[in-house]
């Protein structure tokens, strides 16, 4: 019990710490941060339920007014923009990542975590964020995909691969810590 709650808290803190890493700016001028990789890692490492709880805990602290989002943003305001669908989608994305980890029990951990991150951290996330963006701005589907999805997907794919590799490394170092495989 204690271990579960401390792990959930540590992963929430890890998402915040990843937001502090310097961001890389792609050729397209879109900054990518490591923060959304934290969402993938939560699901891949902790499994569906605990992964989603860790993300909710992180978002809870952001809403309470801590500047934990990449770039030092935070507070209630960040939940009011048309891009807030990403924030609302984060816990679901972590849940889906954890769930698909379970479907791939037989596969190698690093590979399974990478595929699960693509499914949850990209597929499911945009399934929520893009319709939310459309509802908030009245944009048509092709335009929403062009402005809220296409610019970010290349960076997200890189992050999913890295998240898979990191999960594989952690599994080698601390197999017991990968709760989705316990």
């Amino acid at each position, binding site marked *: 019990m204690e271990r579960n709650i401390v792990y959930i808290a540590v992963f929430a803190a890890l998402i*915040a710490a990843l937001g502090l890493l310097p961001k890389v700016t792609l050729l397209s001028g879109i900054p990518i941060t490591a923060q959304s990789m934290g969402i993938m*890692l939560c699901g891949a490492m902790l499994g569906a339920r605990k992964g989603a709880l860790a993300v909710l805990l992180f978002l*809870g602290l952001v809403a309470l007014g801590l500047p934990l989002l990449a770039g030092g943003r935070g507070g209630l305001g960040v939940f009011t923009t048309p891009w807030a669908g990403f924030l609302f989608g984060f816990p679901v994305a972590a849940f889906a990542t954890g769930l698909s980890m379970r479907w791939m029990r037989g596969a190698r951990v690093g590979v399974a975590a990478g595929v699960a991150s693509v499914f949850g951290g990209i597929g499911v996330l945009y399934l929520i964020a893009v319709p939310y963006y459309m509802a908030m701005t009245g944009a048509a589907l092709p335009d929403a995909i062009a402005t809220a999805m296409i610019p970010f997907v290349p960076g997200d794919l890189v992050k999913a691969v890295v998240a898979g590799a990191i999960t594989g490394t952690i599994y080698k170092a601390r197999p017991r810590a990968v709760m989705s495989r316990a």
Partner: protein
Amino acid sequence: MLSLTLERQSWAHRIPVGWKLATLFALTFVTFPLDSIAPIVAGLALVLLGWTSLGRAGFQASLRALRPVLWFVVIILVYHIFVGRLHQGAVIVLKMLLLFGFANFVTMTSRLSDMMDLVIRLLSPLRRVGIPPERIALAFALVIRFTPVLGQRGARLAEAWRARSARRAGPRIIAPLAVSALDDADQVAEALRARGGLRE
């Protein structure tokens, strides 16, 4: 860790957090179906008035918080001009500025501990489904303590990497950072259990 709350006390700091949050939620539902510019502009004027009442530092902090949103404003406006629906674009952008401005006002005038108390109180019905609110409070406190620790350790790992390599560390430091964090987590969990643990 820095919070976004304004240090300097104001009239708005004295309003109970619950009232401010309730107003924010009400505002969200009231503005959502609005389709004319006048009432939104009136709301924005009130929010601006609220900002100025926070003093110079408060006004400047409000503007600073707005900066990342302005980028979104430009994208949305350009898009709506492009598809020839300027009115709709203006309504969306003004609504967003109104909600963001007020939400930020609430954040800046509410202490973290007051917010936390309110959340714990609101979540206390979860006790019936087996999640005691004290456990949520403990989790919040743990994250607040862990975050600067992990941030500093990440910076140290990046520094150690730079001492050995000409290239940037990048994502290579995340795995060692996570492993060390997990070791910490095991120790903290054991320490909690040694002190009586969490009651089931």
